[in-house]
């Protein structure tokens, strides 16, 4: 039985030890992070490639689920845990040389641990603690450059995140008041008490609470400032990975408890607003990081809309959009490492770095959904689901997505044409090949997925089938509950 706990605990151990170690020898301290991340990758990869039949349910401290905390490693959670280890290795600060290098590595490891915890944990308050850990670690990482804008962006981000966590805690209190338990599976056993207005208000508060990191509309005003002033590596991880994990929490709640209530409608409505505000502000963005920050808001709005669709179709569409956005957005932020200036200053930079410009065009094509690329299949999944939904809000969502994609295509290719303009003194390109290696690898992965779309789609359908199956989740965590559920219909 694979110790599912190690990928969370080892990075924490490394984080605690990195600061004292740095005093002794800088080399070990620098190498500690990558070693720990590769071990957790090695631990998790086999069970993601050929997934175990039954999900790995791990009760921490051998305490039965309702009492202790349970880690639920179904195929979806393992997929995200793998993604965390992989992407943190990809976007690790290999060159170092930062005066506070030990602190930065410690915070990166804490972020990695909390991300894995968010993916695996099956207890609501434990998810809240990991979410808060991810928040505090990202405050430190965002204020890394220490310049004025970085600090102001961090403070604004901190305030909205604290406001969100206060509301999330209120939601958890309301939920605990009604059900007396915090284990997700136990909440799902008899969700009737939570279907009422009080339960839905608890869900609403948690949507606002976890929506801060998931870049939901009224709470995502921190996104452009933070991604423009934070180092590109950190923005790549925050925009690509951590935001998806925040949405994963809401997905678990949605699938287990609030399946057929008014909750999906709320998500759909907020998703439409997020998409609308995200993409239209990107139209006026004047610098590269802010443009892709707004487009990441738009894409996450699409994820929210996808998850609001009923049944396993919604989960499939949402996870497809989320994974595609994870791939493309981190790669775009990888490019933003060198292209952090204004769009005008980047005119004609395709002459110096043709490969980077070609990568940008590839990612832009996939982002707006041009057929052979995977972006198209994810978008058609969402649109078909919305069309089947049939409600008036679903059709407005359909129209909004189409309109917004046209706007997105325009501003992305306005910049692409600028890249390919003929200019005498083209701006300096990427100094070394290593700088956009992550984007290159992710671009290759995107093309690989394009060629082998069918096997990837089947694997994804199997994952989401399992994730969307409510009673399967409950019987896994509470075997005896299955016995007593058999008798009552």
């Amino acid at each position, binding site marked *: 039985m694979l110790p599912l706990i190690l990928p969370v605990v080892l990075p924490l151990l490394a984080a605690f030890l990195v600061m004292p170690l740095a005093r002794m020898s800088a080399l070990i301290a620098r190498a500690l992070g990558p070693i720990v991340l590769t071990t957790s990758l090695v631990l998790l990869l086999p069970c993601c490639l050929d997934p175990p039949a039954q999900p790995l349910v791990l009760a921490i401290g051998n305490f039965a689920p309702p009492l202790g905390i349970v880690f639920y490693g179904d195929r979806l959670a393992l997929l995200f845990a793998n993604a965390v280890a992989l992407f943190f290795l990809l976007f690790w600060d290999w060159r170092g040389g930062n005066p506070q290098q030990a602190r930065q590595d410690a915070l990166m490891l804490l972020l990695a641990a909390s991300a894995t915890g968010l993916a695996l944990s099956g207890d609501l308050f434990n998810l809240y603690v990991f979410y808060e850990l991810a928040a505090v670690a990202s405050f430190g990482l965002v204020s890394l450059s220490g310049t004025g804008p970085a600090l102001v962006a961090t403070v604004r981000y901190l305030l*909205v995140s604290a*406001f*969100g966590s206060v*509301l999330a805690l209120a939601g958890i209190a309301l939920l605990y008041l009604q059900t007396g338990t915090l284990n997700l599976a136990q909440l799902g056993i008899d969700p009737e008490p939570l279907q009422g*207005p009080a339960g*839905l*208000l608890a869900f*609403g*508060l948690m*949507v*606002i609470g976890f929506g801060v990191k998931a870049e939901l*509309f*009224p*709470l995502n*005003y921190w996104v*452009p400032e933070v991604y423009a002033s934070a180092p590109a590596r950190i923005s790549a991880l925050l925009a690509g990975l951590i935001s998806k994990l925040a949405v994963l929490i809401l997905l678990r709640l949605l699938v287990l408890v609030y399946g057929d209530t*008014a909750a999906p*409608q*709320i998500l759909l409505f*907020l998703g439409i607003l997020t998409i*609308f*505000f995200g993409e*239209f*502000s990107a*139209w*006026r963005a004047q610098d590269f990081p802010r443009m892709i920050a707004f487009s990441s808001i738009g894409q996450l709005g699409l994820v929210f809309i996808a998850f609001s669709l009923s049944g396993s179709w919604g989960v499939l569409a949402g996870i497809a959009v989320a994974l595609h956005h994870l791939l493309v957005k981190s790669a775009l932020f990888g490019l933003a490492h060198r292209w952090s200036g204004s769009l005008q200053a980047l005119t004609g930079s395709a002459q110096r770095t043709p490969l980077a410009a070609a990568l940008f065009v590839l990612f832009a094509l996939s982002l*707006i*959904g*041009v*057929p*052979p690329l995977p972006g*198209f*299949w994810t*978008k*058609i*999944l969402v*649109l*078909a689901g*919305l*069309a*089947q939904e*049939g409600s008036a809000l679903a059709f407005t969502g*359909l*129209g909004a997505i*189409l*309109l917004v*994609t*046209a*706007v997105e*295509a*325009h501003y992305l*290719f*306005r910049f692409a*044409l600028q890249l*390919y*303009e*003929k200019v005498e003194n083209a701006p300096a390109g990427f100094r070394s090949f290593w700088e956009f290696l992550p984007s290159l690898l992710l671009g290759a992965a995107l093309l690989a997925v394009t060629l082998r*779309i*069918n096997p990837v*789609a089947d694997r994804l359908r199997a994952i989401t089938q399992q994730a969307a199956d409510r009673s399967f989740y409950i019987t896994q965590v509470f075997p005896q509950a299955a016995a007593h559920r058999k008798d009552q219909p």
Partner: protein
Amino acid sequence: MNALDLLFLLSGATLLCALLFGRTRWAAPLLLLGYAAQFVALLQTNALFGEPISLSWSLVVLDQPMHWRYDALSWFFALITLGAGFLSTGYGSGVWMRDYERAGHSAGVLHTALAANVFSMVLLVGAEDFLSLFLGWELLNWATFFLMALRGGIAARAALRYLGYAFTGGMAILGAMALLYAQAGSLEFQPIRESLPQMSDGQLWVLLALLGSGFGIKMGLLPFHLWQAPAYAETPGPGSAFFSAVSARMGLYAMLVFFVGMVGLARLVQMEIPYTFLNGRDLLAWIAVFTIIFPTYTALQQQDARYLLAWHGIGQGGYMVLGVLVGTAEGSAGGLLHIFNHAITQVALLMAVFAVLYRTGTTDLNRLGGLVARMPLTFLTLLFGIISLAGLPPMAGFVSKLLVYRALLFEGMPLLFVGAIIGTLGTILSVYKLIHNIFLGQLRLEHESVQEAPLSMLIPMLSLSLLIFLAGYFPGPTLSWVAAVQAQLGLPVVNYHLGGVYDAHGGFNMIWIVSVLLAGFGIGALVFFGLGGPSKRVHQLDNYAGGHFLYAENRYQYSDHFYAGLMHLIGPWYRGSFQWLERALGSIVDFLAHFTNGFYGIAQPLLWSLAAVLGIAVWVF
């Protein structure tokens, strides 16, 4: 490995070899060979008269099958595509390409773009379900954008404007596909054709709006036609010829497949517009008529030959839609025939104009003139082209326009007929301006030493002119193709013969008409050359007026801002024909962007978050 697989493979191979060997010296002959091979493979599929042939491979993605099938309609469009591709590559190889490379552009990229366009069109016309239709559609959109944006500067801006329109059209089609999927449970044509009758009129109106605007944008129907002229005019030579021939007609292909093939004209007629006597078909017909009128009269104002012809490309599209919408055997035959006739006409005209551009370096109508002596063969091509464009007897354009007019009159649609006639009047006026300002009138000093167009450009031009004349003289073969397409689309089939058409009102026979015309010309020529007195050859610049010798500098001939008077008269009626619509949309998007960006500028936006919490509480309660 049937003939269709061979066609697809060859098309892909041509694209690949354009990509790999585009820059080398013998790229052009290789590509010509590739297009010729594809042409032969197409003939082998024999999808026109024989049974429709389907591709042996079929993709299944996310349990959505995608397969391709060639039938008469696809064969007809593939024929035009490959013909246009072959001729424009031939036209663009050799001398023209060397000049293009000297201007700093790369030949390989142009060849690749052209080959990509042909490949995506071959893919599109074979689509058997909405998914492969959309795949081909998007590939075509992006290949067109790529070819348009090659020359950078104005071309890049025109290409970006095209992208805005094309992508919005693509999204409209995607929306319609989602609705169809929800309605019919699958994106195949067959299940959709079965589920269409159960659809209510409201749903059909939504589909008409979405798919109509999606395909209409590509075709340049009225409200969405502003992007086409600058985009097609600014594309490099062969690309512009190729686009004007067939690229816009892909929208018509898709319209034919959906509105005529699946929905059926009868159903369109039943879709009444409440409180008006119009129905679905009338609405589309009136849009087609206005598409004929507005762009043609905008063409009248143009000062650049390429823009003038590009605006005409939009106008002529209206005839095709009008013809098909009439629905009778003659009308649809005229519409479908006009696709072919207009393709060869437009390509010939643009080749001639680009030949002039190649030789004199400008296509500005106010700085040309008197080239008939210097470039006689180009003049001949342009003459044949404009006669066919205006729809006058000896040439091909006349046959299809006559069919459309006869159908309009016999079906009792006089107002539409009058609109079409006004359009033709505008065409005649503007084509005369074209040929007068370039070839007739006083030669300019700087064009004294202009040569005839090089051979590599002349061959495609002259062969096209011959084709235009023959298609006009013996419309039989082209009408046979059109009849096969009508049979496949389920329209009443026109009964044709070598010279023309029989119908209830007697029909017409082009052989007689053209022979009488030629006879008349013959007598006129005899009288002019035979009986006239001895004529003395005079050098073009040796001119006298009122006893004074006219030096070449002073212009004694009216060639600046041709039709200025007419423009003064009818100019105020139409400003820029729907420029206001585009500006309005642009400003709405800018305003929304400004509004949303404002949210991200607020210093303390937690109030909005609190409002969201309250909203959820109210929603939940």
